[in-house]
């Protein structure tokens, strides 16, 4: 009834009220309004603002445009180079190890004879739901040189103690170990769902043709899983390029910037050295790197859904 009245109204005259009154044509905007406002205020505006800020410098109590000088300074900034280098070390070592490990575990969890699959899956996934700070603190304890459990294990098998968090290479290794521990299960769950989606008939056909397990994995599983693996690789890559929490808690970026990431440096620049302009330039370089990497991976693997 109400709606009919409304129709009559709109038919007669397009008064302002009837034009904006929720009907089938205007309703989607009403549903989207809060989200649009939130995105404009807390996403679009900040993105533009930080872009503009990357060309400015704070001097004598106000911001002034300095052209590209923030970006020029970046090119020869040794800390930025170190941070970027660390990001790539993490990326090149951690992401492949983690994805392969996740793939192996999901393949094992998908075996038909396996009992207690749910319990295994839950255990592997548990690290991913832990608070970052909590797990970083526990790892700080585990990796402690003098009383840490990992060095205790090494001593049990008569290996020398490692000064995990205080030497450049081992500190990086610590970050990588911690990240692998945290994120393997997350990727495994996604990959496992993909594996479970592959029809058993295909494998049976392979059995008939006499294919062995390794052939099946490379000829059937891998090609069919390509879009899902791609998804995992891209999200992990983006996550690694944005890495902040682990170095912040575990090593504070040290020793001597050996573990600092671009995100850590950005945070320090902005909130420790209070240089918003320069920090914005850093963040935009990060955006470009992430965009380029995502595109390359899409092209390289031939895209997916």
């Amino acid at each position: 009834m109400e709606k009919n009245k409304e129709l009559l109204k709109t038919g007669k005259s397009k008064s302002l009220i009837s034009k904006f009154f929720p009907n089938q044509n205007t309703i989607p905007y009403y549903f989207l309004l809060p989200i649009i406002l939130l995105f404009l205020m807390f996403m679009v505006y900040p993105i533009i603002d930080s872009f503009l800020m990357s060309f400015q410098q704070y001097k004598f109590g106000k911001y002034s445009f300095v052209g590209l000088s923030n970006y020029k300074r970046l090119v020869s900034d040794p800390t930025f180079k170190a941070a970027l280098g660390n990001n790539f070390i993490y990326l090149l070592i951690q992401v492949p190890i983690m994805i392969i490990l996740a793939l192996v575990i999901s393949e094992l969890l998908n075996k038909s004879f396996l009992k207690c699959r749910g319990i295994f899956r839950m255990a592997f996934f548990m690290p991913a739901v832990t608070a970052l700070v909590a797990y970083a603190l526990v790892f700080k304890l585990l990796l402690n040189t003098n009383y840490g459990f990992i060095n205790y294990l090494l001593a049990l098998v008569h290996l020398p103690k490692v000064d995990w968090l205080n030497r450049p290479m081992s500190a990086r290794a610590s970050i990588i170990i911690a990240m692998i521990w945290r994120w393997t299960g997350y990727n495994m769950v996604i990959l496992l769902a993909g594996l479970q989606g592959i029809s058993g008939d295909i494998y049976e056909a392979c059995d008939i043709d006499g294919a062995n397990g390794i052939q099946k994995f490379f000829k059937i599983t891998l090609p069919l899983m390509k879009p899902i693996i791609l998804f995992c690789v891209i999200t992990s890559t983006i996550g690694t390029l944005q890495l902040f929490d682990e170095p912040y808690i575990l090593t504070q970026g040290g020793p001597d910037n050996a573990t600092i990431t671009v995100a850590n440096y950005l945070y320090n620049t902005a909130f420790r050295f209070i240089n918003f302009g320069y920090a914005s330039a850093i963040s935009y370089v990060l955006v470009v790197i992430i965009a380029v990497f995502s595109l390359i991976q899409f092209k390289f693997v031939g895209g997916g859904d």
Partner: protein
Amino acid sequence: MKIKRKPNEARFATQFITYAFLIVGFLVSLFPFYLMFVSATHTSGDVVSYPPKLYFTNNLINNFHALNSDIGIGKVFFNSLFITVTYTLLTIILDSMAGYALAKFEFKGKTFLFTMILVTIMIPSQVLLIPLFKLMTSINMVNTYPAVILPSLANAFGIFLMRQNMLVFPDSLIEAARIDGLSEFPIFFRIVLPTMKPAMAALGIYMFMSQWNNFMWPLVVLRTPNMYTFPLALAGLNGMSRINYGEIMLGTTLATLPIMVIFMFFQKQFVSGILNGSVKG
């Protein structure tokens, strides 16, 4: 047709290797949690003893008192819970509405809007850190709850997830409701939304966990200890000159346990929440 079967020993070997590998992985995954729980009952001296003590002792109460006097457990717990619950409820309702509009209506600017929302997934949160902090300063919202909650509501993942789920809702039901004279808001709230409970649960659990664990933005925008959430309070303890490890491990335990329990209860929804956001896309 005869299917080639593996000989018995080979099958046994496969099973043995599979279980061995998975059990080692199981232990590696859960051991840090065990260490955390055990250390929560230790004195600081016990935690740093060598060889490591791996059994429970009786210092839990002392650790609790120390932790409470350093961070104020009740206040920190309330801050974390209030921010997380408010955020989760708001995100469920707003993302459902947006997802519904994007899935079930044709309107001007729809493709543009949807693309824009998706593109923001690529934007690293660090880019937003500084301008958001400036914005919060200029509108006098630094160190408030809304300052933590509002910006994280602009979240593409949730909108995308709800849209994916809304797509499968039958158009004919919506049409039928319209013919019956139901207007648009009741159609959404009374007809569509009740069928979306599983998706909303998945989204809710996912968002609850990510906000409960959220670190970087709260670190920037919450300035005084009486506003701190668990991750911030714990990071603060870590930075103190006199570090009491037993106390810290009790803190991490308290911050982690609620999430672990929630995860164990809602494991299925949580996992499907991730999957809908990725694989089905």
